[in-house]
């Protein structure tokens, strides 16, 4: 029988989650805030709940307010999406205490794995190789320097509760460590409501490879193979692909890393969708990095090559229902998928660039999936993630996917806001990327976008005017006036 499921998030992931909630016959409940009264995910929700306020701290991060709304609207289950409260143990616990289903792993698993310091220890105990670094939280700059001295620079300074690259900084010496310590603390607090920091060894020319886990409450833990997420900028993933072109057809390594991930998940009796992140050296040796105990931005590429609906199965798991997968053999790879994160950012300065979408249109080839929250008039707010869409391309092979990707990117038109589309187009044609040869330093190695062609010629201006003129004609044909 159908349950009221709170989609406790916004943007494209809220839409993705609401779709899955509906697919399973439940009732999606969505939030809207004063800074986003026209939140596009509401279209997929049957019940709309107002969260007063215009900053995340008073809305999507406001646990008490959200808990009161959960009572008021008789919510039976909560899907946290990614970011916000998705890996907040306190939130998960409070829901557990209320007898409300948290669509994610049990609180203890979040506590252990969601917390990088603890998870590292758990991994060690399980015999999973880890990157050398601080065992627990680092509370002072002095302690940080001590650890850095042990493990040698360069070191990586990162938020305990972090993820998705937010709250991370590489430091090459004590001076940089001092410079970054406090800023990263602040970023950690504002982004995740937790100022805890870690210090660990920074591996040179690494690959970021992660394994998708899906598990149920009956002890079944399956992997859905790996994702290559090495195309990053400032530790922020911008292009992901599955399977990894680095592992390529080295089935031995693929099996090893996937089984390692399953082993670790079993260690904490993991019972939901999650991702085990590894850092892989050029000799294909890998170290456990962290585990994300939530659905991830890049989950669609895994869905496209395995046909496993991760979000739907995550919900089924939380409800104690059997997964669509009966055995590990049900999970196979067919084809190759690439995800491009479409972000509202200045193509030259590469900084987030909020604004209002004035025109939005695309004509994609067959084999393209676009998870997004864009519509003409959609406002990209500075308070929110500039990532507004994910262009997912799938083909029989990587070559086919790249062929389709080039055309898809070219035919995606977003006007009114600045985006990183040009960057994606450059990368898609760049020889090293085409060859599948890149580490996490790729972006800093290739030439960034210098200038995006602007509306220069009179003709271009005139065509804009013609477009408007035609709009009036069309609408004039449909509209009644008062």
């Amino acid at each position: 029988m159908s349950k009221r499921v709170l989609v406790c998030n916004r943007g494209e992931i809220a839409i993705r989650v609401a779709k899955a909630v509906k697919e399973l016959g439940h009732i999606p409940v969505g939030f809207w805030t004063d800074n986003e009264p026209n939140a596009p995910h509401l279209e997929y929700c049957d019940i709309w709940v107002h969260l007063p306020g215009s900053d995340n701290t008073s809305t999507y991060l406001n646990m008490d307010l959200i808990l009161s709304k959960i009572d008021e609207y008789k919510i039976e289950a909560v899907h946290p999406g990614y970011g916000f409260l998705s890996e907040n143990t306190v939130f998960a616990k409070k829901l557990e205490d209320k007898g409300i289903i948290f669509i994610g792993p049990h609180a203890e698993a979040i506590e252990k794995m969601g917390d990088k310091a603890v998870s590292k220890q758990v991994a060690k105990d399980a015999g999973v190789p880890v990157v050398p670094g601080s065992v627990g939280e680092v509370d002072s700059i002095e302690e940080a320097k001590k650890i850095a001295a042990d493990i040698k620079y360069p070191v990586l300074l990162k938020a305990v509760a972090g993820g998705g690259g937010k709250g991370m900084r590489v430091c090459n010496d004590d001076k940089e460590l001092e410079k970054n310590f406090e800023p990263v603390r602040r970023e950690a607090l504002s982004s995740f409501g937790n100022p805890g920091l870690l210090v660990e060894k920074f591996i040179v020319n690494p690959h970021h490879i992660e394994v998708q886990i899906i598990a149920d409450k009956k002890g079944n833990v399956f992997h859905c193979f790996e994702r290559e997420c090495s195309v990053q900028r400032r530790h922020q993933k911008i292009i992901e692909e599955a399977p990894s072109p680095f592992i390529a057809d080295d089935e031995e390594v693929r099996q090893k890393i996937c089984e390692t991930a399953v082993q670790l998940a079993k260690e904490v009796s993991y019972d939901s969708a999650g991702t085990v992140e590894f850092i892989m050296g050029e000799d294909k040796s890998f170290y456990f990095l962290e585990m994300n105990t939530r659905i991830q931005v890049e989950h669609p590429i895994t869905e496209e090559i395995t046909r496993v609906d991760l979000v739907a199965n995550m919900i089924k798991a939380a409800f104690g229902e059997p997964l669509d997968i009966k055995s590990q053999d049900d999970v196979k790879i067919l084809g190759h998928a690439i995800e491009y994160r479409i972000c509202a950012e200045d193509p030259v300065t590469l900084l987030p660039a909020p604004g209002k979408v004035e025109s939005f249109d695309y004509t994609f080839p067959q084999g393209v999936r676009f998870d997004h929250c864009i519509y003409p008039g959609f406002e990209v707010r500075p308070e929110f993630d500039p990532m507004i869409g994910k262009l997912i391309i799938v083909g029989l092979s990587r070559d086919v996917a790249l062929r389709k990707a080039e055309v898809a990117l070219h035919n995606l038109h977003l006007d009114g806001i600045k985006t990183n589309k040009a960057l994606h187009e450059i990368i898609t044609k760049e020889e090293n990327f085409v060859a599948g040869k890149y580490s996490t330093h790729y972006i800093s190695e290739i030439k960034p976008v210098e200038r995006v062609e602007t509306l220069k010629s009179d003709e271009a201006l005139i065509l804009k005017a013609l477009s408007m003129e035609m709009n009036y004609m069309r609408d004039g044909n449909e509209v009644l006036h008062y």
Partner: protein
Amino acid sequence: MKYYIINAEGREVSFDLSVLPKSNSESFRKVLVSQGQGDEKEYLLKNLAGKIFVSEDQTTWKKLPKTKVAESLVNINDAIKVYRGYKPSGLGQANAGNLVTDMPGKIVKVLTSEGAVVSEGDTLVILEAMKMENEIKSGIDGVVKSVHVEEGQVLESGYLMIEIEE
């Protein structure tokens, strides 16, 4: 705004629809619908991503099919005529004596008046629509019973401009 809806079987529904002024704090419109005294109901309407949603309690919302056709709504097996504002005589079957706008436009000129004797083909109104001036001609010989438009007036489709009696 008065609404008249007549469906294929000729059944008529009429009601008063008033859109309340929108306060800045609200992201939706309040609409009052009255089908007669006492029987008044408030709907909340919201345009989201170009789609239209309706709610009665501001919590449970459902999407309304966004009909782009102005004067007629056709359901899967039910044809309906909708008139806004002025209730035309002749209801569904506006005849040659009822000059009804078939596209939205603006009255440029009214060339007749009540009581005038007109014959088929006479131009009675000039309607500007699609940036063209359209001569609206009488379909019959007769006497102008009533003129419902004035110059400068902006009209929707399906609006009865002039009625002529034979």
